[in-house]
């Protein structure tokens, strides 16, 4: 019995030491990874961004808002912290992370659309892993939503189990991850041309909301209001054919967000029916502008913002 327990204790202790070492190595490397998934969190954590304007959204926020153009026209110093494939819950999580590491912004340009007020579905959950152990607030905020356990938060290495590409990345090997070369302060321009296949496959597009997501959105706007942060909500260009497929749901969506704008006294800029939305040359799919469209839209937005913020 004693022999068994001694050997077991030595083995477990050795495994713990190994786990701590590997955890440190993987976490350190991931915090300097240039993979898209980790880029924004790393930028916030490592660079302690000194900006006075934040751009928030999902993938649509990421590929459509050119920080360089907006800054050049408005004189703001902006950073795009949008997260791919996510909804308002994850957008607010990264915003809270930002607030713990960086100074308060003056302005938030909040991209809103038909998918904003949903809950994220665990897509690219790995983005939280490098910060999950040290950041108690992050853990508390996402543990239920993203299904993390106390072991992920407290024990070394546990949270990486099963994420082989993330482990490879953390060990300095070449992992299969998207790493855009031309990230410009969080903006990721996309040089793709229109592909109508996905658009043709859409028969109808509706606007639905999740109650929990609406509550998160409401709390976030309330917090911004209390802290004196100006939030500008933006309906970015959306291919007009897709808006037509939304039918009356498009009007319901505008009205729904207008309710929040009225409640907190925040402005909404709507580019749904802007000329950019009518040309497929500006899009690579119905809901995402390519570089050409993003630059046109950003210029228009920047001019409107300049007038609005004066």
């Amino acid at each position, binding site marked *: *019995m004693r022999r*068994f327990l001694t050997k077991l204790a030595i083995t477990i202790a050795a*495994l713990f030491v190994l786990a701590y070492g590997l955890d440190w190595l993987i976490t350190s490397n991931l915090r300097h990874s240039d993979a898209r998934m980790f880029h924004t969190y790393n930028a916030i954590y490592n660079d302690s961004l000194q900006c006075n304007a934040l751009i928030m959204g999902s993938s649509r926020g990421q590929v459509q808002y050119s920080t360089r153009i907006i800054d050049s026209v408005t004189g703001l110093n902006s950073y795009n912290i949008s997260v791919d494939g996510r909804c308002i819950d994850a957008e607010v999580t990264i915003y809270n992370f930002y607030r713990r590491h960086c100074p308060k912004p003056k302005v938030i340009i909040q991209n809103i659309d038909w998918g904003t007020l949903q809950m994220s579905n665990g897509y690219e959950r790995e983005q939280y892993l490098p910060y999950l152990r040290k950041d108690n607030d992050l853990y508390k905020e996402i543990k239920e939503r993203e299904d993390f356990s106390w072991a992920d938060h407290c024990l070394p*290495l546990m949270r990486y*189990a*099963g994420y082989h590409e993330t482990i490879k990345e953390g060990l300095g090997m070449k992992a299969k991850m998207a790493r855009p070369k031309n990230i410009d302060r969080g903006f990721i321009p996309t040089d793709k041309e229109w592909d109508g296949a996905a658009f043709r496959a859409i028969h109808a597009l509706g606007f639905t909301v999740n109650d929990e997501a609406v509550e998160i959105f409401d709390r976030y706007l309330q917090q911004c209001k209390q802290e004196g942060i100006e939030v500008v909500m933006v309906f970015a260009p959306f291919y007009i054919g897709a808006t037509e497929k939304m039918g009356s749901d498009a009007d319901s969506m505008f009205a729904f967000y207008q309710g929040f704008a009225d409640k907190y006294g925040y402005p909404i800029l709507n580019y749904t029916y802007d000329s950019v939305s009518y040309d497929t040359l500006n899009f690579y799919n119905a809901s995402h502008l390519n570089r050409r469209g993003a630059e046109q839209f950003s210029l228009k937005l920047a001019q409107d913002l300049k007038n609005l913020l004066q």
Partner: protein
Amino acid sequence: MLFTSIEFMVFLPVVFALYWLLRRQVRWQNLLVVAASYVFYGWWDWRFLLLIAFTTACSYASGLMIKPEGSRRRNLTVMWTNIGLNLGILGLFKYYDFFASELARLLGCSGDSVMLNLILPVGISFYTFQALSYSIDVYRGKIAPTKDVVAFFAYVSFFPQLVAGPIERATNLLPQFLRERKFDYAMAVDGVRQMLWGFFKKVVVADNCAVFVDKVWGDIGAYGSPDLAVAAALFSIQIYCDFSGYSDIAIGCAKLFGIKLMRNFNVPYFSRDIAEFWRRWHISLTTWFRDYIYIPLGGSRVAKWKVVRNTFIIFLVSGFWHGANWTFLAWGAFHACLFLPLILMGKNRKYTDTVAEGRWLPGIKELGQMALTFVLAALGWVLFRSQSIGEALDFYAAMFGGGWHGFNPPMRAVVFVAAMLLVEWLQRGRGHGLDMSGVRYRAVRYACYLAVLAVIFVYGVFNETFIYFQF
């Protein structure tokens, strides 16, 4: 509580430490086993603890009421009452909705109105059969009824094998709870190794296969014949590794407590015919059916038509044991059809040894036989995996008559399957894949453990439950 959960990683060392602190105090150890097992089971849904306690109490009482010196008629009544009660509970939870809705459909009514939609208690088929075997064996005089109620509760609820077997017999397990257990170093070390191998099979092999299998079964029409064939083959491996992985963890875990459970799988995919396959697959259930149904019906030592009847009965019951669905019955019937020619020709016990014993490689004939047996088993698993007979027929039609387009096998899963099969082939004469009792060099042993742990850590899929929990 799942074996693969973080809660179990805390639960097991705590129970292990308390258990051996109480050594030489058998009754207290048994009490701890009961308490720990009820915590383990109640972690899912504490309400079902009443059910398992009731099942256990009925079987315990029936054992005491069966008197060797009493009248046969009375003893028979007690045994059948216990069987009726236990199967009644099982039937209510597992089969009522199926029969009620099928009957309603036959009568032209809506099935929904008569269904109870009860939640199926985890592992109900396993512990019910284990409890039943006790009262039958007491009636048959194979085991003396126990008066030790704590030991009996420990026998029925022993947590490692409570929810997915092996389905133990009272003749093997109960005496172990009645005598003092001594800590056996070699047994405990082997238990940890077997658990490690079980985890590898479950979270690396089975769950990586599951990713592809679920995708294909989710949209059968989108895949060509080669992908469907690969999915059928991978499901065969998935269900084997899922279930035998659980059994390995259960058996290994029991060894830590000085308890020997029966072997549940013995490299079934290295079988040379279907009869051998069934001697190596889910051994605790097949022997249960053999001993308590097949042999009492006369087995194979009766007229030919009765052999046919008995074979069909045992395979259909076996299929139906898995769940209330026509697919399970069809799966049972499919295997009965494969088994029948062998038993009628007296060839069902042709292969009772281990394939290629004493050799590194099998012969060409053996390889062909194993491949054919695997293909037949895989064809049967399509029925097992499908939600309905219609879906299974769609799968067969697409697999045999579909196009040869888009062959995209999941290479990572295939590599893990190949590695698992290679290890099991090399270790086929031993208790489990990681049985390293013959390896002299400590460094080699530890390198193997570390390699397995590393693969589990990097490539494991940790959010899947065990397939057999639903049965």
